[in-house]
């Protein structure tokens, strides 16, 4: 009876008020995903608006410097709005519009998903309201203003820990308030079914392109695909079309914050346990009574106490590996990529770069690894400067 399961994970643990809407959403999605007209429209938006396909760039200097596998960077940072978030948002916004919705609401952590949602709403002529933790509106003030420029109303969320999970809570509450004309444009492969499936499908364009591009460049599949994981949408998109290719290692990099042996971490697989929250069964950072733990990472986009149910399943069956990466390692990698390849990536993506720096030399020179650069780092420059003790204005 229960739908949207990935092994024991997933499901629809959500209030009765929203159940019929989730059923309608699933029906609409199942219909439109087979509709050639919908797909043509979405592909057109991907290609002509978002700038897809995104480049698969061979990082020659990095490869030589690390002395192992050939390093490729999947440049999701070059998409319109500066991250992979636009893939999912264009898909969901178009779907919502087909369903007759006139208003989009969304949570955002770093602001990337909020900016992408506000962008799609502007493009498709929809109302837009974004919920963002007060702590995040402070540390990502520029993104707040970007969303407002795009015509969205931004609500700073002051409940709980005032970060991403509280933004999700508040968006869910708002959706229960007003569901008839409103679509909740959920930003990651999380929440109740059908969201983990819908978001994965729209993000899977990343691995679809990766596969074509790497086969063209190398004539064979990569040895590994590496992506950062908060809720896990860019990683799911980067992994999905390689899941059946067992020789491709899939590695998700979690935000360890100050370290997995401290309380200041957001590494769910490393430190969490099985639970039910935000509509899904999965792994969560929580205390002995199942209270959701306040989590920490330098990256507002990875600062989430759970992980999408399909990732939890890929972990359970050993198909993907999840590794913790600390703030320090991520900041070092952020600087390394800027200096070595002239690319300022998002601090989220820098977690994936950091792990690649550790493992590249374990691979042969005839092998390749792909790092998913999920977003660009302009938004993080001020925070990195502060981290290094440099006082600059945002």
């Amino acid at each position, binding site marked *: 009876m229960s739908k949207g399961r990935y092994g024991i994970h997933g499901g629809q643990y959500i209030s009765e008020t*929203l159940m019929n809407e989730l059923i309608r959403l699933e029906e609409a999605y199942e219909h439109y995903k087979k509709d050639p007209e919908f797909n043509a429209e979405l592909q057109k938006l991907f290609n002509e608006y978002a700038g897809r396909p995104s480049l698969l760039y061979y990082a020659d200097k990095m490869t030589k410097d690390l002395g192992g596998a050939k390093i490729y960077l999947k440049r999701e940072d070059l998409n319109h709005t500066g991250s992979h978030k636009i893939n999912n948002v264009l898909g969901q916004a178009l779907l919502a519009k087909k369903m007759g919705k006139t208003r989009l609401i969304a949570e955002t952590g770093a602001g990337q998903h909020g900016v992408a949602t506000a962008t799609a709403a502007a493009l498709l002529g929809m109302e837009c309201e974004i919920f963002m933790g007060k702590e995040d509106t402070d540390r990502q003030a520029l993104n707040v203003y970007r969303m407002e420029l795009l015509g969205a109303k931004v609500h700073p969320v002051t409940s709980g820990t005032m970060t991403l999970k509280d933004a999700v809570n508040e968006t869910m509450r708002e959706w229960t308030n007003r569901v008839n004309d409103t679509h909740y444009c959920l930003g990651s492969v999380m929440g109740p079914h059908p969201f983990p499936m819908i978001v994965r499908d729209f993000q899977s364009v990343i691995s679809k392109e990766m596969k074509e591009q790497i086969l063209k460049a190398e004539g064979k599949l990569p040895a590994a695909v590496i992506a950062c994981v908060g809720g896990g949408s860019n990683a799911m998109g980067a992994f999905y079309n390689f899941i059946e290719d067992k020789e491709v290692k899939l590695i998700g990099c979690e935000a360890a914050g100050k370290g997995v042996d401290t309380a200041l971490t957001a590494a769910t697989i490393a430190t969490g346990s099985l639970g*039910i929250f935000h509509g899904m069964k999965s792994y969560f950072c929580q205390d002995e009574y199942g209270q959701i733990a306040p989590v920490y990472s330098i990256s507002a986009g990875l600062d989430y106490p759970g992980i999408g149910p399909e990732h939890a399943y890929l972990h359970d069956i050993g198909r993907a590996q999840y590794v913790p990466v600390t703030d320090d390692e991520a900041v070092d990698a952020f600087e390394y990529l800027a200096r070595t390849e002239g690319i300022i990536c998002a601090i989220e993506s820098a977690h994936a770069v950091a792990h690649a720096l550790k493992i590249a030399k374990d691979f042969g020179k005839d092998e390749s690894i792909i790092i998913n650069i999920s977003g660009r780092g302009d938004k993080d420059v001020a925070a990195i400067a502060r981290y290094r003790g440099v006082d600059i204005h945002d």
Partner: protein
Amino acid sequence: MQTDNKFKNNKIHKAFMNHNGKAFIAFLTAGDPDADSTVKYVLEMERAGADLVEIGIPFSDPTAEGVVIQDANIRALKGGMTTDGAFEIVRRIREVSQIPLCFMTYCNPVFHYGYDRFFTRCEELGVDGIIIPDLPYEEKAEMEEPASAHGVAVISMIAPTSEARIQTTAKEAKGFIYVVSSMGVTGVRSEIKTDLKSIVESIREVTDVPCAIGFGISTPEQAKKMAEISDGSIVGSAIVKIIAAKGANAAEDLYNYVKSMKDAIKEA
């Protein structure tokens, strides 16, 4: 369910047997502001005429709650309230009272405690039901099986958006049916616009399980009106507001408030 042997000690039906069969159901959060107060307030509300009390086990992220009950959750957790603490509150209440009691909380605290362990404790202490806003019909089996094995009713919720789900849900309901009056989260509302009468009629076509209406009810007039079209009124935020204002000195105000609500329901 009275015929079901596992439920022979369940007391929920008794809440709907007083006076005109209409129940006043009160909610408060365990440990807000402290455990002693919660014990005292439950007994005080019983004395004022409450027929059933829902005790909230606080959760860090109560997504179905408005600001008033969110804040109560935070106060309770800051004060150190836990699932074991809530069981201890029930144990102390049960020393002196047999009022029907339900827990209200979210999936995760129950799941994390362990379903069997949780409902074994409920059975030992005489907790009659559990209300879980993030457990819809589709997912209830995993909790209902262990709960039923210990004679605890998992309360079904029906919302203004339930449509065809009303009867599917109602057919399998145990204890009582919680009809959500309005869209949105818990909290005091000046007006309730949903066509609750037709929802209740739809429920009645398929079950005799009593149904009570909650969300947004705060005045005696509203309580009476809701009890007229259903079997009872559920009040949470208005009670929690009194506790928020008076802290450990809310007993008298709670007594007066609950009495005024119960008196109104008696006229329904």
